[in-house]
């Protein structure tokens, strides 16, 4: 060894044999080292390939096979004549996987240099980004043109984490006219994910980006969505599918066939002109909802891919409250439209006969208050028929006092006032049907007998939805047989063409006599023939029944006269009208409310006339003169 050599450094000893021996020893040590290291490798191979084999084999399989959900096509929604209200179309989207990108702003700027990305796209993307916590991909642009696709494809290497996908989009061709009834879908949010998990539906929503958020889209989600299919695909390391190993096809969602008549709805929507309001039309013999209008509406297409902040603020902050479903959620005092129901109550409860008349001085004094009639000096002698035809307040002040609040509440409860109708969309308001018990519950206060008086003419605590009013008048039209209002006629299985009807059976029959109903029905016919709304129904080719109403928005002090022109626009009275036709065999019953329009006969009845004309005679109203307000709102 070299150590020995160094003992005698001065002597140049050339002992080749010894040196060779030393070298060979070193070589042997090195060989031992090599063998040891190879043994180590062998040990490692053995460990991986034998000991850990099962585990790593599983990992390799997991690498290899991806379970890809195949999202079913959402069912379409059509009106009673087959007019499409919601459908799907296929389009290409540019999508970004935010978790793979460091500087999103930069990326979007670079993309924008290639493909048009509007400020609206950016705002919407930002909102989506805030809402989603998942690691999926979010669309930055939808509906790419062929040129844009080609342009991106040529540059895609510059944009890792950005991809083009073909997706089905929901579209609502009728726009704002059906926004409140058809509703819309939107991207699934965190709360909905949790709900789906709680309901055990999470698996069926794998791969589904959208869920019904409003209206029928929400209520019939389980029918519309369908069953998600599964594809087992072999993927490469980039997640790109290489081939399909097995496939369970998705089951497409069911189609909704509605009772709604799209053209009728359009006529009704346009009949409001610039006014806000709501209209609900029902087929009395079935409860099928023919029209369901809340105006103003909004463009539901804005919501499908997440609405951008600007549009959202505009809708949400608008004084007109376009996002509120007035027909379903808005509660209004029914005003004089309450009178026919009061009359029926009086007859049924034996408090009045049709012939029994009062002398109307133009007011009713009770407990030191004077309750005034519209007509100064009064209507003279008023029986039940006249009380409805001329809408005499005094008659109903007295009647309400005679009946008492709880009897009124019990009877009106039968007609559905004060409880949800159970229509097939969510968000319904129950309204307020006042009673002693209600007031105690609500205000923890005793009921005062004086409060009953204004309830008699549909004021006071009374507050009902247009839908409740429509349901009640439809029940009168249908001779007391009540149906739950339903928008969907039947659900159609797209594969078997099997139809599941939604609501074939009556809800209940009113506990009233037929001759009593006829008294009220005759009086309602009289209203349109010779009463408050007769002018609106001149020359109609059918016999109709109706009742006007005016609902106070603000209280008027005693001794003060309500003068429309002196009141601020939004404090003006709401105009109401309920009607059905043809009187002998009602095909349609409706309730309409026009916000801040003033007297019911002037603004609400003409809308009803247009709707009835179209529905019964197929007559389209003359084209509306579009005003500036409408044009700018579009």
């Amino acid at each position, binding site marked *: 060894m070299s150590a020995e050599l160094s003992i005698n*450094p001065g002597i140049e000893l050339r002992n080749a044999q010894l040196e060779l021996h030393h070298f060979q020893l070193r*070589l042997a040590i090195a060989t031992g080292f*090599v063998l040891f290291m190879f043994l180590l490798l*062998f040990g*490692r191979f053995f460990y*991986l390939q034998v000991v850990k084999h099962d585990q790593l084999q599983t990992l*390799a399989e997991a690498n290899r096979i991806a379970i890809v959900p195949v999202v079913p096509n959402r069912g379409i929604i059509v009106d009673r004549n087959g007019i499409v209200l919601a459908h799907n179309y296929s389009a290409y989207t540019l999508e970004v996987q935010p978790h793979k990108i460091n500087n999103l702003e930069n990326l979007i700027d670079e993309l924008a240099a290639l493909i048009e990305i509007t400020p609206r796209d950016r705002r919407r993307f930002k909102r989506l980004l805030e809402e989603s916590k998942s690691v999926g991909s979010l669309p930055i642009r939808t509906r790419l043109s062929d040129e844009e696709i080609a342009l991106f494809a040529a540059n895609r290497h510059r944009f890792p984490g950005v991809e083009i996908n073909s997706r089905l989009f929901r579209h609502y061709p009728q726009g704002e006219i059906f926004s409140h009834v058809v509703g819309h879908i939107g991207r699934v949010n965190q709360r909905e994910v949790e709900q789906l998990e709680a309901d055990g539906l999470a698996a069926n929503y794998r791969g589904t980006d959208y869920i019904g958020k409003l209206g029928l889209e929400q209520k019939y989600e389980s029918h519309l969505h369908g069953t998600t299919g599964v594809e087992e695909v072999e993927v490469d390391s980039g997640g790109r599918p290489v081939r399909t190993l097995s496939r369970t096809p998705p089951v497409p969602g069911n189609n909704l066939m509605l009772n709604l008549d799209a053209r009728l709805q359009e006529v009704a929507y346009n009949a409001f002109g610039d006014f806000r309001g709501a209209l609900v039309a029902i087929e009395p013999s079935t409860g099928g909802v023919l029209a369901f209008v809340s105006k103003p509406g909004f463009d539901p297409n804005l919501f499908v891919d997440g609405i951008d902040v600007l549009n959202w603020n505009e809708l949400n902050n608008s004084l007109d409250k376009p996002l509120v479903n007035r027909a379903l959620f808005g509660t209004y005092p029914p005003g004089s439209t309450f009178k026919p129901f009061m009359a029926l109550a009086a007859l049924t409860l034996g408090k009045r006969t049709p012939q029994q008349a009062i002398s109307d001085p133009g007011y009713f004094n009770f407990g030191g208050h004077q309750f005034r009639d519209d007509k100064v000096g009064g209507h003279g002698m008023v029986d039940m028929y006249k009380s409805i035809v001329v809408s005499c307040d005094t008659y109903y002040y007295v009647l309400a006092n005679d009946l008492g609040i709880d009897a009124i509440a019990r009877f009106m409860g039968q007609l559905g006032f004060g409880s949800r109708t159970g229509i097939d969309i969510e968000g319904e308001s129950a309204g307020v049907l006042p009673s002693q018990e209600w007031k105690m519950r609500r205000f923890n206060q005793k009921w005062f007998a004086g409060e009953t008086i204004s309830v008699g003419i549909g004021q006071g605590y009374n507050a009902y939805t247009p839908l409740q009013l429509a349901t009640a008048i439809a029940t009168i039209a249908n001779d007391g047989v009540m149906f739950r209002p339903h928008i969907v006629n039947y659900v159609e299985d797209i594969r078997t063409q099997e139809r599941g009807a939604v609501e074939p059976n009556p809800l209940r029959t009113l506990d009233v006599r037929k001759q009593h109903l006829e008294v009220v029905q005759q009086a309602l016919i009289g209203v349109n023939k010779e009463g408050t709304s007769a002018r609106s129904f001149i020359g109609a080719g059918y016999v109709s029944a109706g009742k006007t109403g005016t609902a106070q928005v603000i209280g008027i002090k005693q001794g003060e006269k309500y003068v429309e022109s002196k009141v601020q626009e939004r404090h003006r009275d709401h105009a109401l009208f309920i009607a059905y036709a043809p009187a002998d065999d009602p095909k349609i019953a409706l309730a309409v409310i026009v916000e801040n329009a003033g007297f019911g006969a002037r603004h609400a009845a003409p809308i009803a006339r247009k709707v009835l004309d179209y529905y019964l005679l197929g007559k389209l109203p003359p084209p509306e003169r579009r005003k500036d307000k409408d044009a700018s709102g579009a």
Partner: protein
Amino acid sequence: MHPALRQIGRHITRHIDGVLLSAVLALMAVGLVVLISASNMSAARVTAQLANLLIALGVMWLFANISPHYLARLAFPLYVLGVLLLVGVALFGEVVQGARRWLDLGITRIQPSELMKIALPLALAWYFDRYEATLRSKHYAIGAVMLVIPVALIARQPDLGTAVLITAAGFFALFLSGLPWRLIAGLAVAGGAALPFVWSALHDYQRQRILTLLDPMQDPLGRGYHTIQSTIAVGSGGWFGKGWLNGTQTHLDFIPERTTDFAFAVFAEEFGLVGCVVLLGLFLFVISRGMLIAANAPNMFTRLLAGAITLTFFTYAFVNMGMVSGILPVVGVPLPLISYGGTSLVSICIGIGILMSIHSHKKLVQT
């Protein structure tokens, strides 16, 4: 066969070691089989590699025919040239993928670090041969400096893989020349003490690679990805492998660099533990043959040269397989004679050619 032809044939194969050649050809064949699978039967790749192999075998033959005597004379000038070129790279080199490894000479681009793989063992063998009778610590110190200069230049390119290989070549030369054990122990201690400094001198990505080795799962889609996927490939091979062309990790693109540095993952996945043992056996056979040639070499120069070349070959194989199976950090070291690519193949075949030359020229030298 015609006697003249036989004569020519004998002349051509005079310096070729049939034993070594057969093992080398077997490894090359394995490499082609792996490449066919790893490249998804790309005819272009396989053809290109066939050309590489022919060139490499030609170069091997050439070096087998060069007498060690000439090599010894070339050793020091080659080393100096290599160092100069490395300095040139550091000053004027081309940056390719973040590393400065190539030197553009106008006519062609070269990678001087490859030259160093041969030049350094040559130079060290020459140096120790020259002072063989009077070797003292001073000489080992100079040897160490000869080692450190190119390693430092290569490490800062950065090219950790080549630096490791050249360090190994140099260290084995020093070791075989009789580096005293106390110096080895001293080196080990000094090395241990220097670790923190080495750590701070490393590039971020190099540190990351080492950290990743300790815990690949800390960055499974980033830096740990290579190790995780290649480990899965090796392990899922099992006893007998998934069969040629059937490796899912391979064919679904989960193994990065699968024709080059990670070719072994492809092999292990498709041929399993049995295949791995056969491959280890082939490598061991080449190494043993090289050791035997070193042991029987006639003088210090050829012994050291043969030993260092053989152990460098071992280092290639060990580092690569260790890296693929997840016990060593990911450094760019190909699997000798298996991985796709011409450059390292040629330098390996030069080494094997030199081994053959040493073996076949020993009588000539001895006389």
